[in-house]
């Protein structure tokens, strides 16, 4: 069995209560950090651990903490990004509902490290029931002296606020999240200034993903170095993978980074293989935003090396033959899946979720969706394929926030690897637009 950092106790009955969580060793990290360490030492452990942002960007968390400005007399904020909305990703949802105290404990330790006295957990509004779970956990922790004024007699005060979103994927972007938390439309901000300098209420702010913060209790208890021992290379620690699509056992799995994609996909401990009687056609490895990979590039990289579940290996080959680990949304497609239809579906998502502030994303996402809709429904023309590629290029890199890139990559990569399927839709409009129709050309399946 692989090591578990986040989910070790997740199935213990009653783990959502303070009492059980405490019995399993919970809140010892708070005691250790607040009683025996300085905030700087906590930051140092985060740095040593090498833990990278689990929301998708993969930026080293300790380094992000290091950027936090500390002007005299200005409050600093820690905001937890629990606006999980990336299609294919549901790990934070799982973690928060199953073991809420883990996040609360992580928030206390991290807030202490950053010198924040008021911290926020921004949860997507749809997860209102999870918000109630978190609020209850906070009340319990407060009653036990782990939150509120003068925590454990240390003189350190911390208040935790759970903030609901209102239904907007874009608020997963950290500056849009801060705008939303200020009670505004979720329009991402232009950067610089970065939140580390001017964030919530124009004060220095760190925004971290649920899973990133939930690693902190283990890191404090066991040391950053021990954390860095797990995993492979610069992909340290474990990662929650949300597995969905055409597999035997969809669900959330904690893996040690560096596990082979093949083992994750096929072993009974994880996905349990493709649905019976079917074959692997494609994989989106890190949430809908990352490039889709065709069957021949999933288990092996273009060089013939084993593809691993790590930041580096999944991106091996760049976008030509690789993808990204992203948020760990592992979406598996078998031969019954229509790539054109799925690309249109994802494109509709980004069109729906664009905030509309900057022109390339506002106009480009809608344009792509309409063209893809036409192709899928038998009204495409041959020039549409290159038109789509060109639109993705005009959006990518030119927008205020990464949503433009996220909308472009799935389209560009689907055409890169499955161009034949797009062409077939155009040349065989009536066949392709029939319900359930799928291209069965000479495509590599595994």
């Amino acid at each position, binding site marked *: 069995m692989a090591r578990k950092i986040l989910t070790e106790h997740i199935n213990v009955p009653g783990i959502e209560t303070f009492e059980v969580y405490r019995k399993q060793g919970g809140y010892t990290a708070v005691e250790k950090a607040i009683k025996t360490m300085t905030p700087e030492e906590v930051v140092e452990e985060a740095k040593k651990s090498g833990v990278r942002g689990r929301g998708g960007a993969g930026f080293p968390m300790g380094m992000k903490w290091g950027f936090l400005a500390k002007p005299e007399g200005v409050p600093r904020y820690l905001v937890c990004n629990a606006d999980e*909305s990336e299609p294919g990703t549901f790990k934070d*949802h799982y973690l928060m509902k199953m073991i809420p105290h883990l996040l609360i404990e992580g928030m206390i330790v991290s807030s202490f490290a950053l010198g924040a006295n008021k911290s926020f957990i921004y949860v997507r509004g749809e997860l*209102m029931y999870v918000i109630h779970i978190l609020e209850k956990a906070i009340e319990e922790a407060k009653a036990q002296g782990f939150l509120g004024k003068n925590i454990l007699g240390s003189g350190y005060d911390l208040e935790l606020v759970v903030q609901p*979103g209102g239904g907007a994927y874009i608020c997963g972007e950290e500056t849009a999240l801060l705008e939303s938390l200020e*009670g505004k439309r979720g329009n991402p901000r232009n950067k610089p200034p970065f939140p580390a300098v001017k964030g919530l209420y124009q004060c220095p702010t760190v925004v971290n993903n649920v899973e990133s913060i939930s690693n902190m209790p283990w890191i404090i208890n066991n040391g950053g170095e021990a954390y860095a021992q797990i995993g492979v290379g610069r992909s340290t620690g474990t990662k929650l993978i949300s597995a*969905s699509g055409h597999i035997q056992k969809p*669900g959330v799995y904690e893996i040690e980074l560096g596990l082979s994609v093949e083992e994750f996909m096929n072993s009974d401990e994880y996905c349990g293989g493709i649905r019976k009687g079917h074959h692997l056609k494609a994989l989106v490895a890190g949430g809908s935003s990352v490039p889709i990979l065709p069957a021949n590039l999933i288990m092996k990289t273009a060089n013939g090396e084993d593809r691993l579940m790590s930041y580096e290996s999944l991106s091996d080959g760049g976008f030509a033959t690789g993808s990204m680990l992203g948020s760990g949304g592992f979406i598996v497609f078998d031969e019954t899946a229509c790539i054109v239809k799925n690309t249109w*579906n994802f494109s509709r998502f980004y069109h729906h979720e664009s905030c509309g502030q900057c022109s390339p994303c506002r106009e480009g996402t809608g344009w792509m969706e309409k063209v893809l809709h036409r192709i899928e429904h038998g009204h495409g023309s041959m020039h549409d394929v290159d038109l789509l590629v060109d639109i993705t290029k005009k959006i990518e890199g030119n927008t205020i926030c990464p949503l433009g890139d996220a909308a472009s990559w799935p389209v560009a990569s689907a055409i890169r690897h499955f161009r034949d399927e797009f062409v077939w839709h155009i040349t065989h409009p009536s066949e392709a637009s029939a319900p359930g129709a799928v291209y069965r050309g000479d495509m590599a399946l595994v």
Partner: protein
Amino acid sequence: MTDTPNTVAFTPERLVKAQEMIARYPEGRQKSALLPILHLMQEQMGWVSSEAMDYVAELLDIKPVEVYEVATFYTMFHLEPVGKHVIEYCRTGPCCLMGGEEVYAHLRQKLGINPGETTTDGKFTIKEVECLAACGWGPVFQVREKYYMNLTNEKVDEIIDELSK
């Protein structure tokens, strides 16, 4: 000016709750309470009318237009009256891979309405939404705060029958 705020005012219990929400933020940052308070209003009214938004604006001491801008940006707020139960099903890729389309077609057929519509008895409204972060447990829909997961046609029948009571 409109005199309707009286009809949309929070109940005393909710008003206390709203005041608590406002108090969570630093002074002068009461606008931060806008989303939680809009949720609270929707919980009370079932939807959010423009009069309700004006009331919220007054409560938070902000301009009404600031509330309209926000309420129309986020998809969770119903800006028109809805049925007793609002069924919001996820139409995004992974749920479709898990058989969502058939299940949702069955749901629409069973209720005889399309997304955005309400049954004539006023009991159900269907809305199509994007990813609900439950992809591995799809197909999925949400009715108020409750998630219904791993849906099948049979399960949909049971749920609708239960909610119809």
